[in-house]
C-alpha cells in the first residue's frame, strides 16, 4: 500500500499505524504497554483531518502532513502546559522536544497547577514522585493489560486532578503489585524511579 507523507510517497504494510511510516514526536505511546491516543503530541493531518498517528491506520492514497504550522503550534502549546503543570527535570526527551518546538511556558503567566504531591516511598524498590507525572498512563497499562495483568495501578480523578495511583491510594505492598518495575522502565518522566538511583 502506498501513501504520501509530507509530499513524499511511502510504502506501508496493511494495518500499519501512521506512527510507523511518519516520524512524529510521541509521549504516551509505547509498543509493549499498548498505550495510545492520550497525549496528542503525535497528532498529524491526514486527508485534512487531525488524527493521532499512534492510533490511526495508514490507508491507500492517504495524504499525511506531520509538521504544519498548526501542528507545530499545537505541540508547542501541549508541551508548554506539561511544563507549567509538572516537573520535567527528569524527562530529557520532553525537554528536547520543548527545545525543538520553541516552547516558552512563561508566556501563559500564572496557571492553575497540579496539586503538589509528596514523594511516596512505601516499598524497598521504587518511589512514586507524582509531581513529575504527565498522566501518560504507560505505567497503568504496563501493570495491567499491556504486560503484567496485575492491575496494581489505576488512573484516579479528572482534569488537572487526574493522576495514577493505587486502588484506594493504598501503599504498594497492600496491592497486588509484584514489584517487577516494568512501570518504572516505561515511565518517561522519572515519576517512578528505582530507590537505588537515589543518592545516599
Amino acid at each position, binding site marked *: 500500500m502506498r501513501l504520501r507523507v509530507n509530499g513524499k510517497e511511502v510504502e506501508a504494510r496493511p494495518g500499519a499505524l501512521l506512527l510507523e511510516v511518519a516520524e512524529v514526536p510521541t509521549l504516551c505511546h509505547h509498543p*509493549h504497554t499498548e498505550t495510545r491516543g492520550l497525549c496528542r503530541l503525535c497528532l498529524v493531518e491526514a486527508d485534512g483531518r487531525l488524527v493521532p498517528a499512534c492510533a490511526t491506520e495508514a490507508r491507500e492514497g492517504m495524504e499525511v502532513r506531520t509538521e504544519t504550522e498548526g501542528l507545530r503550534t499545537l505541540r508547542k502549546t501541549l508541551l508548554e502546559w506539561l511544563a507549567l503543570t509538572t516537573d520535567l527535570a527528569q524527562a530529557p526527551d520532553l525537554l528536547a522536544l520543548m527545545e525543538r518546538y520553541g516552547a516558552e511556558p512563561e508566556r501563559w503567566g500564572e496557571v492553575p497547577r497540579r496539586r503538589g504531591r509528596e514523594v511516596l516511598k512505601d516499598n524497598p*524498590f521504587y518511589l512514586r514522585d507524582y509531581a513529575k507525572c504527565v498522566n501518560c498512563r504507560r505505567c497503568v497499562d504496563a501493570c495491567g493489560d499491556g504486560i503484567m*495483568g496485575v492491575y496494581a495501578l489505576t488512573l484516579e480523578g479528572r482534569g488537572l486532578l487526574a493522576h495514577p495511583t493505587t486502588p484506594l491510594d493504598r501503599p504498594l505492598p497492600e496491592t497486588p503489585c*509484584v*514489584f517487577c*518495575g516494568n512501570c518504572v522502565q516505561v515511565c518517561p518522566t522519572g515519576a517512578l524511579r*528505582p530507590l*537505588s538511583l537515589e543518592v545516599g
Partner: protein
Amino acid sequence: MMRTTCPYCGVGCQVEPEIQGNRILQVLAPDIPPNHGALCVKGRFGLDFPFSGKRLLYPMVRERKGAPLRRATWEEALDFAARRLLEVLGRRGPEALAVFPSAKTTNEEVYLAQKLARVLLGTNHVDHCARLCHSSSTAALNRSLGGASMTNPLEDIWKTDLFLVVGSNTTETHPVIGAMIKKRVRQGAQMIVVDPRYTGMAEASTLWLRVRPGTDLFLLNAIARFILEEGLWDRAYVEARTEGFAEWRASLEAYTLEEAERLTGVEKEKIALAARLYATTERAGAYWAMGVTQHTKGTATAQALVNLALLTGKVGKEGAGLNPLRGQNNVQGAGDMGALPDVLPGYWKVADQEAIRRFEALWATPLNPDPGLRMTEVYEAIPEVEAIYLIGEDPVTSEPHQDHLKAKLERLPFLIVQDILENETTPFADVVLPAASFLEKDGTFTNTDRRVQRVRLLLDPPGEVRPDWWITQELGRRLAQALGRPWKVYEGPEGIWEEIRQALPEMMGGINYPRLEREGVRWPCPSEEHPGEAVLFRERFNTPSGKARFFPVHFTSPAETPSEAYPLTLSTGRVLFHWHGGTLSRNSRLQEAYPELKVEVNPKDAQRLGLTDGEPVYVVSRRGRIRAKAWVTDRTPEGVVYAPFHFAEAPANRLTLDALDPISRIPEYKVSAVRLEKVD
C-alpha cells in the same frame, strides 16, 4: 555493551545493569527476546548480591578435619586440592570421586568441569541440581522423544490457544513467562491449571483443577482414557509417529473418571471438560514444573503428560508441544554440556560406542563407559565416595532431610566448595575457592527454550576472586600434570566455546560469539546460516526409530502419607521474591521485601488449631521441626501447608524426606507428613 543475561531463572531475560562503583543504579531491559523489555522483581531489583558482605574473597584451606579454615594463596589452595584428589584417586580409584558442576555457571564452565571429571579423574559421578528439579521430566522426555528440553519456543505462547499448566506457579517462579501466558489468555486463549494451590496462574485460568497433592498422574491418565473413550484422539498421528500405543492403551483401564474424582478430589465433569478442550484444541501447549516432577512418581507423572500429548498429536507443532519450564538460569545448558552421570555433552550416552569414539578423539584420552551415580546417590554413597568437587550449590539447604545430609557431609573425607557467597555448606568445606559472579565474567547461559545467550563481564571481580572456568582449568592443569594426561588450557571462555562447537557440530556448530552479540540463538543450530530450530520434532523424533514411544505409567501413593500424629501434607516450593537456597536473593535488596519464612495454612486448619494469621508456629515432621510465621490463606487447600525452602534459619528441607523416584532419583519435596504446633 552493558547487556547480559539475568542470573536467576531459566527465562533468561536480557538485562542492562547500570553499575557505578560498588552498586547497581538501575536495571533496564532491552527490547529483544526472550523478555522484550519486561523483567520481574528479581531481575529488576535483585542483582546486587555480588556486592554482599558475604562474598568469599580469597581461597581457604582446612589442613585436617577439626582445624579451622585458613586463608591461602591460589597456588596453595589449588595445589592442596589437586594433591588430595590425586591421593583419593590413587588409593580408591575414580569411583570414589564426584564432580558437581553448577547450573548457575556458564556453559563453558560446566563443560570444563565435566571434562575434568571424565578426562582427568576418569569418573562419571557427574551431576547437577536438575537432579532435584526436572530430572523426572528429562528422563521421560528422553526415553519417549529422544530430547530433554522444551519442544517449542517461548514465542509460540502468542500462537497458543489452550495452555495446560500443571504444577507450575509460573507467575512467581518464571514471572516473565507467566505474564506472557496471562496476556495470551486475555487475548482469548483458554488455560487449564492443575494445581492444589490457588496460584496466580489458577487465578488467571479459565478452568482450574484443584487436585490433591501428588495425584496429578491419576488425573492425566484419566484424561487420556476419556479422550480414547470419546474417540477424540489423533489416530493418524499416533499411527504415523508413535510406537507402544496398544500396550499403553491397555494400561489405562483402571483410570476412570469416577475413580479420578474420588482420588484427585476434582469433579469428573471438570476432568471431562479439560480432556475435551485439550484434545480438540489444535494449538494446545503443555507447560509444567516442580508440581509434576518432585514426587517419587515424578518420572511417571511427566510421562503421563508426554503420553497425553502424543495421543492428541501435540508434539512437533507450532503453538503446542511439551514445555518443561526449567528452573536455573543455565540448567538447560548444564544438561546440554554433559553435567550428568549417564551422558556426555550433547546427550551422547557414556556407553555409546560412537560417543566414545567422538570424545576420545576430541579429548585424546580413554573414557569410562559406565554411567556414574546421580547427585542424591552420591551423598548416600558417602564415605564410599571420599571426595566431592562442589561448584555453586548449597546442598545443606537444597537437599531433602537436612540432618541426614549434614551427617553425611560430616563423614565426607574431602570437600571442595567453589562458590561466590558463603552459605550453609561452606562450613563443611576442606577447600574454599572463591568464584566470580555473573557480572564478573564472560560466557554463555542457555535458557529454558534452548536459547544460548551471552553473559558479559561488566565489573572486575573483588578481592582474589577468579571466574569458575579459570579455577577449574587451573585445578585441571595440576591434575593433568601429575597424571600425564592431556588438558588444553584456554585464554578465555570463547576458546572453550569453540571446543564445544567442535564437540557438538550438529547442535552448536552454527553458534559463535560474534553471532551472539545481537541476541541469543537457539540450538540445534548446525551452521552459521541456520537461524536455530524453533519447534523440535516436526518431522521425526530423535529416537533410533524416529518415532515417539508411549510408556505405561501407574499411580502410586506418596512415600509418606498423613497419619494421626502428622495429619497434614507439607508441600515445599518457592516465592516470587526469593531464589532457591536464598544464597543470592537473601543477600540482595529482595530480602527486605520478604525477610522471613511464612507457611501457608488453610483457614479451616488454622481454626482447628486456634491459629491466627501472622502467629508464630512450629512445623514438625518425623525428621525435625522449624519455626515459621503462619499465613492463614485459602491459597492452600485444607490439609495442606506450603513452605518455601529459601530460609536457612528455618529450613523446610529439615522436614522433607529423602524418598526418591526410582528412575530419576528426584526427592519427594512436594509431599511429606507434618503437624503444626502452637508456639507458647
